């Protein structure tokens, strides 16, 4: 009994230590004065590798998600004679929820895991240590650009996800199932509010971007420098990242729902 308590206590203290370490790391990333001349090219490079290289998976997934949503929505709405409401149904689901959430989960799987593995491998091959010994701070040179690159990429990817998913729904709803294009777009326009729906959705994606990239860089930076350690860290990034996104989504929705 006492042993079990001790084990639980040790586990709890270890978890708190990890949270503390992650907080200190985030603090160092946020409060360092930016180096514009040296930092900007690194940031652009990271926006490319985390954002641009995630475009394929985001575009293909969003297209299919929009198409499936339209297909399912149309059949349910048609039962009540409300198929002209397909546009608002699809747009609201995507802009408010599916866009930010699915983008963030895909981002954790595609870019988050890559960031963790890259930083973990740099640690295992003594690249981070040698950088430190060359008086170059790895937090500034390696962690910071990856963190900000992810934070910038996520909202942009979400906007692209939203647009492509709605286009996918348009293809199925209007071109295939025969919903009138004018009704589809005009109902959508009258039901979707820019601030309450679109901006709040983007706001969510900003929070998810911070959470997922923070988890990814922290897991990489604290990964055990072995092959198994890096594999575990990569898995943790995807699992913790996805869970954080879903948990935060509930909290943010609860906070925003007052506006709707």
């Amino acid at each position, binding site marked *: 009994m006492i042993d079990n308590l001790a084990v639980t206590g040790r586990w709890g203290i270890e978890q708190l230590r990890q949270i503390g370490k992650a907080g200190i790391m985030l603090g160092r990333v946020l409060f360092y004065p930016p180096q514009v001349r040296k930092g900007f090219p690194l940031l652009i490079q990271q926006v490319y590798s985390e954002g641009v290289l995630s475009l394929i998976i985001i575009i293909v997934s969003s297209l299919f998600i929009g198409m499936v949503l339209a297909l399912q929505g149309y059949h349910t709405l048609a039962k009540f004679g409300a198929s002209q409401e397909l546009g608002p149904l699809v747009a609201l689901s995507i802009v408010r929820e599916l866009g930010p959430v699915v983008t963030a989960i895909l981002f954790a799987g595609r870019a988050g895991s890559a960031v963790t593995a890259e930083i973990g491998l740099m640690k295992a091959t003594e690249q981070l240590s*040698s950088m*430190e010994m*060359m*008086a170059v*701070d790895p937090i500034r040179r390696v962690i910071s650009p990856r963190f900000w690159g992810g934070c910038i990429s996520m909202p942009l990817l979400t906007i692209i996800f939203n647009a492509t998913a709605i286009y996918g729904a348009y293809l199925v709803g209007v071109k295939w199932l025969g919903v009138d294009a004018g009704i589809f777009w005009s109902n959508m326009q009258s039901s979707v509010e820019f601030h309450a729906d679109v901006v709040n959705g983007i706001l969510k994606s900003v929070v998810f971007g911070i959470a997922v990239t923070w988890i990814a860089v922290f897991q990489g930076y604290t990964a055990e420098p072995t092959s198994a350690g890096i594999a575990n860290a990569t898995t943790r990034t995807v699992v913790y990242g996805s869970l954080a996104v879903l948990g935060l989504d509930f909290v943010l929705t609860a906070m925003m729902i007052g506006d709707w």
Partner: protein
Amino acid sequence: MPIPDNLVEISNMSFLHENGKTVFQDVDMVIPRGKITAIMGPSGTGKTTLLRIIGGQLSPSAGKVMVEGQPIHALSHQKLYELRKRMGMLFQQGGLFTHLNVYENVAFPLREHTELSESMIRTLVLMKLQMVGLRGAIGLMPNELSGGMARRVALARAIALDPQLIMYDEPFTGQDPISMGVLVKLVKTLNTSLNLTTIIVSHDVEETMQIADYVYVIVDKKVVGHGTPESIYRDSSKDLQQFIQGLPDGPVPFHYPAKSLAHDFLQGVNA
């Protein structure tokens, strides 16, 4: 023998690993300026940890580590990084940046810490690569280099900013005889031509003794002997002789601590 001008002074230093294991217990050591000092000892005695303590990457649990007269573990982040600009370290695996080619790797510290023009950086990189004999490999990527070449490139990078102190972590491990000879010669040449203070951590007795001016031997958390290579060879203490002669059993036991043979063999698999 008192040594007048020491770049690094370690006094009463103890280090406790995160897992609770004591790595060093009351270690005293001085690294004289301009000389090659070797720190030797069996694998797992924390020689690399010692280099990391001198470089300020780890803090001792007790005692003092003074580098250039400053307590390195008590320096602010900024002062520590200023001091590190005057240090170079060659890691066991080289630590080359895998996404940069040889030229960019060597140019990295110059780009980070100086405002030199591109043509000046190119000249300096070529000079450093010429010193290690790899000017021709300027365009290669780290994965195209052999282990010995990678270490030489890392060495060129470590001396790019003309440091005062250079630390080598097991520079000769896993090298073929030719690469080993090249590295031994390079360490010696760099020390004399650039007037560097050199610390070599190694367990390759013969190669290290050839070039070292002063040797410390660490066994089981403590310095068990120090002196010139000749005096180390002559020392009759068991700790030193086991290490120098490579004897399988002695103060450092062949067997890892275990229960008795009878206990392990006669008990069931579940016991």
